């Protein structure tokens, strides 16, 4: 789960990281008031779950409250890579001597948290990694010991020469690690970590992703979830216990299992179609889930056909078939449905579906090809 900059800054502040103050607002008037309360120059920053806000014009410096209001007016409602800006953060502008990058993420290959730090901050770290890999230092954190003091120091000394800055950065790296572990983060980064002309080291941007699996222990972080920032269909899917990702095609997919769901999407593409979504209904044959899945899929006006691909292993195919029949009774669906069911109790399942008037297939390729052809005709 991605959270907004202002929320990430709150987590960092709680861990002791020096982060300048800020106010999140949803109207230009509030932006003006916030700028006035801070005095001096402020920055107005779009709060959206995507990078590249700056290039898109979502981050603006304002010299006066009036200017802040004008910027907020432009930024609020702006579309950045498909995300509509609903909130802006107003924060005092800082004088910047140097910009560094400090981040920590769960690394799959070392199976541990890994810090990445670079004195070249303020830019995309992936770019630095490509153009100047020597400017990045990576330090794996042994999960048995956590971040060790000498590791934090060595990273800080890689960023700075000035002992006072090294000292401040050592502390901040430790605090960032605390925030990372306390909040089940999969990623926590400060970019840039700046040094002011007075020699103070501060975090002026913050990015955090939370491991969804860790949220059950963190209701206060779960509360950060911004439902406005995701399609309503994804919110509904999550609430129904489904994995759903909206895509741009016209073949609505409903599959059990994430791998099979991806393979089904791929096969749609293989036969010349475009999947409208990723949807994993999981192992359950609960009609409520099937209803929710169908509601979500049909709420997308682009969807021309609905494709079920169910491999009955532990899940019994006849249970799923009953669920589909039950679901289509409960909601009115005009979109044609193509169903493939195979595995446990397949014969009974096909019987149930045929009785209810559905086309039913046992081959994955056959059903996908048919559905794609149908969608192309629509």
């Amino acid at each position, binding site marked *: 789960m991605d959270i907004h900059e202002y929320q990430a800054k709150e987590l960092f502040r709680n861990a002791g990281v020096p982060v300048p103050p800020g106010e999140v607002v949803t109207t230009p008037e509030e932006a003006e008031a916030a700028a006035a309360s801070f005095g001096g120059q402020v920055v107005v920053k779009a709060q959206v779950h995507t990078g590249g806000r700056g290039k898109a014009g979502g981050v603006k410096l304002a010299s006066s409250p009036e200017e802040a209001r004008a910027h907020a007016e432009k930024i609020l409602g702006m579309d950045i890579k498909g995300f509509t800006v609903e909130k802006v953060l107003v924060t005092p502008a800082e004088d910047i001597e140097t910009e560094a990058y400090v981040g920590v993420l769960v690394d799959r290959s070392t199976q541990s948290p890994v810090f990445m730090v670079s004195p070249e901050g303020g830019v995309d770290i992936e770019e630095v990694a490509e153009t100047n890999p020597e400017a990045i230092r990576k330090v794996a954190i042994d999960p048995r010991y956590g971040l060790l003091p000498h590791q934090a120091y060595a990273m800080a000394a890689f960023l700075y020469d000035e002992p006072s800055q090294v000292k401040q950065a050592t502390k901040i790296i430790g605090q960032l690690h605390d925030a990372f572990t306390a909040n089940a983060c999969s990623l926590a980064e400060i970019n840039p970590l700046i040094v002011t002309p007075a020699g103070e080291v501060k975090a002026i941007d913050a990015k955090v992703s939370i491991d969804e699996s860790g949220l059950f222990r963190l209701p206060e972080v779960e509360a950060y979830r911004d439902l406005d920032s995701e399609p309503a269909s994804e919110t509904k899917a999550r609430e129904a216990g489904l994995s759903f990702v909206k895509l741009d095609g016209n073949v609505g997919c409903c599959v059990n299992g994430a791998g*099979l769901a991806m393979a089904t999407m791929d096969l749609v593409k293989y036969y010349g179609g475009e999947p409208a979504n990723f949807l994993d209904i999981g192992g359950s044959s609960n009609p409520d889930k099937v209803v929710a899945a169908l509601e979500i899929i049909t709420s997308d006006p682009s969807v021309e056909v609905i494709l079920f691909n169910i491999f009955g292993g532990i899940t019994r195919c006849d249970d799923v078939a009953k669920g589909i029949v039950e679901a289509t009774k409960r909601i009115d669906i005009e979109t044609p449905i193509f169903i493939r069911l195979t595995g*446990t109790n397949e014969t009974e399942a096909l019987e149930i579906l045929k009785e209810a008037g559905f086309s039913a297939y046992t081959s994955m390729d056959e059903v996908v090809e048919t559905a794609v052809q149908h969608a192309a005709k629509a």
Partner: protein
Amino acid sequence: MSIFIDDTTRLVVQGITGRDGSFHTRQMAAYGTQVVAGVTPGKGGQTFELDDGSQVPIFDTVEDAVEETAANASVIYVPPAFAASAIMEAADAGIDFITAITEGVPVQDMARANAYVLDCGARLLGPNCPGLISPGKAKVGIIPAQITTPGPVGVISRSGTLTYEAVNQLTQAGIGQTTCVGIGGDPIIGTDFIDCLEAFQEDPDTEAIVMIGEIGGTDEQDAARWVNQHVDVPVIGFIAGQTAPPGRRMGHAGAIISGSAGTAEEKMKTFEENGIAVAKRPVDIRDLVKEALGV
């Protein structure tokens, strides 16, 4: 032969009295797996009845179960909040092979649990995996046994039902399996492709290997290079998620393309570069295996 489990495996089920645990215990036992013990804290001393009426003793701790029944493998069906602890408990009790079915284990919990398992010298499969089956010998986890049959193909996969799809097609074509292993779809897992490849490579009965990967991470690439250097039998590969957009998690916690790494295209390219036959569709897996085995 087979890898990791066979008819000598003595299994303890952690969470045996739960909904999933009890269901799958019956399935595993019915398949012939030696289910020697169950663990549910607070229910030590009770027994769990199998379909054939025989009783599996329940213990409060894995340690007790190992002491009383000489269990050497465990399978975990406990809720996510307790899964990492259950894994560590099994490792601490001297279990050699631990399979964690549980989905949704916090990844930082897993980093610690994984380190602990290694420190104890045990092997973990999972979490968030369907487990494994050595057809005709034993089954640990939730893979539907009826889609498998004994034979010469080793199957390794990050997914559940996609594996069933592929295995089912092999079985229907009369091609059996030595062992089918689901390694799971989480970012941090115990046993990875290379561990399985190594085991299959050492198994004289495995004559071809199927690797089913997906987007996210670079495990498939690493595995491909390992195949190139160490594997003598033909390897057939498939990658799910060719149409997945970057930055979006496709169900599995680990199935997410971050940055430039982890795309299906990249993985398939690396497969090909390292002599792995790449299946474009699931059904191609069967055909490529047939070709490789010359049947």
